[in-house]
């Protein structure tokens, strides 16, 4: 039966205990490193010590994170917690897609890579209709034109552009 404390808890139950434990563990490890990772300068005021503000942040993390864990209404890891961890791991796949895109843009160029990335990810998400794939291509093209050509956002040209003939090469490096 759900207790009153569980009922009043803000947010879902799943994953809370694992998150609180993980957060506290990392905070404690970081706080334990404070002697090695920061300096204490003799003859300097406390407020001007390089160690002062990291200590403030980490002490807040340890104390309040610890109290949060202590106040959690659940003490055991349940099946829901394990399912939630699996859900967190699912996000890693898309982080992987993002990093692949990031690493390939400097090689293949912003326009070609975006024209590949958007429809490919849309395909991966289960969109198979021609309309959606056409919209994906149009969106990819519009993004590149808007940011690189119109707003002149700093994204270097791809290595493959070097193989293009003179004037086309400059045009591509500048706009796409």
């Amino acid at each position, binding site marked *: 039966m759900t207790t009153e404390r569980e009922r009043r808890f*803000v947010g879902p139950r799943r994953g809370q205990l694992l998150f609180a434990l993980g957060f506290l563990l990392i905070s404690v490890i970081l706080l334990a490193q404070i002697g090695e990772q920061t*300096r204490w300068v003799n003859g300097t005021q406390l407020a001007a010590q*390089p160690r002062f503000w990291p200590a403030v942040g980490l002490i807040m993390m340890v104390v*309040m994170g610890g109290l949060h864990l202590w106040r959690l209404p659940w003490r055991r890891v349940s099946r829901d917690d394990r399912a*939630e961890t699996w859900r967190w791991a699912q996000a890693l796949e898309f982080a992987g897609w993002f*990093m692949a895109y990031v690493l390939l843009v*400097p090689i293949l160029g912003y326009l070609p890579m*975006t024209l590949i990335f958007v429809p490919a990810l849309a395909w991966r998400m289960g969109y198979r209709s021609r309309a959606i794939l056409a919209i994906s291509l149009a969106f990819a093209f519009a993004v590149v034109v808007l940011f690189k050509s119109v707003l002149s956002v*700093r994204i270097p040209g791809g290595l493959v552009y070097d193989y293009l003939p003179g004037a086309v090469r400059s045009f591509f490096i500048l706009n796409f």
Partner: protein
Amino acid sequence: MELLAESLSILARWDVVLALLVGSVGGVLIGAIPGVGPAVAIAILLPATFSMDPIVGLTVLLGIYGSSMYGGAIPAILINTPGTAVNALTTYDGYPMTARGEPRRALSLAYSASFFGGVFSVICLILFAPVLARIAPLFGSREIFLAALLGIVLVVVAHRGQTLIAGALAGLGIFIQTIGLEPVKYSQRYTFEQPFLSGGIDLIVVVLGLFALSQAFILLTSVDETVRTTRLRGGLFQGLRELARHPRVAGVSASFGVVMGMIPGVGEFTAQFMSYTYAQRSSKRPEDFGHGSSEGLIAAETANNAVPAAAMVPLLALGIPGEALTAMMLSVFYVHNVVPGPGLFQNDMDFIVALYLALLILNVLVLAFLLIATRPLVQVVKIPNRFLGVCILTLSFVGVYSLRNSATDCLIAAGFGIFGYVLKRLSLPIVPIILGMVLGGIMEVKLRAGMARVREPFDFIDRPVAFILFCLILLVLGLHARRVWSEARDLKGAEEQLRHRPGRFGGLMARRMGALEKARLKTVRARHARRAK
């Protein structure tokens, strides 16, 4: 008059006018798509605005911030899904109106109330600007430190029921901003001898990870929902007439929005709930609230649209952002070497008035756009969730990579994206991390400067403004402690009651009685049916 003319000359440039149009229309579109929201859009656009003139860049961002709530009302009213988080209260009365066949009236009321809230707050701030210009110079290092501390305290205590984890996450924000080369003694802090950490972790990388990438992950791992929109017929002007019949609700709600917007960390939610509660208590028909009350809709929409302009006050006057969106805007100021704070009010008053006027014009543009374009705009709510995730992930690349062309930044952003995804899945707050980062940096510098002239601890609060701020911090902490104590007592009472409630036997008896009653009714209905034949 001279000041007004100078401000108007700043605005009368083609690029500023274009920024106003793009910001207002873009903001409405972003607000109308559930799952995007102004924070994601601003995070993505932030690096692109760095190459613009400060007034142009800020107008675009302010446009998105100010007009997204107008757009957010559309899905809240038509499909019971708030476009932005702050439109959640709009669903209470907006959707029931749609359900009973009055979507046009609900939308029209929402637009009119939003317009009133937005214009009211800008007019208040234009009138209030000279006062701010006089007060702002009274803020030295100690006062700014205490104001930033008050901001952190307010942000933490505002997360009711999550105060401890909000405090821990604010601590995480403070810690993150300390990573890298320390500015005075030039020593490394928490770099673990990794060169990429020496320069510190950029606020925008964290913002993009926590807001944009995490939202993309949320959408990509969700399922597409089938959305059915309601057909709109007729004009959209009747709301203005109906708003005029409730001047008290509109006026009080807009005032709540202005006051709450100025207090760091409080923002739209508190303003809305206070206005809604006030409107319900003072209404002649409180029973209508939550079932399609026009007063309820006016209270919610007026209050949330009065906040954006007011939220600029602590940012412009003290350089202290009150929430995540103004924290992002602060970085635009810094990039252009425009330092918000007391000096800005003394030296660049025309710039500040120009910003306020831009907000005023923006509200007019948005209302005009919505009155014309609502019907086609309704279609944007049909964009599938996961496709939206694909779009946000693609756009996030521009935001992060264009900063320094660094794949490491993207990796850090992806890390924060996963962390933000976990926080969102667990309904834990993200804003304290951002404010911890921004306010932590301000506090570090100001405390160091303030302490240089302090011999005894009490010297720190010997000036009137510092003393008032110190008392306010104590007051907020005292009130919070009292609330925690009363909630703990209430919880204990509720648990005690639960313990002494009739046990399972009572429940089983009640269920059995219910089943018997249902069976009896079924028999009676069958008998009646037989007789009717």
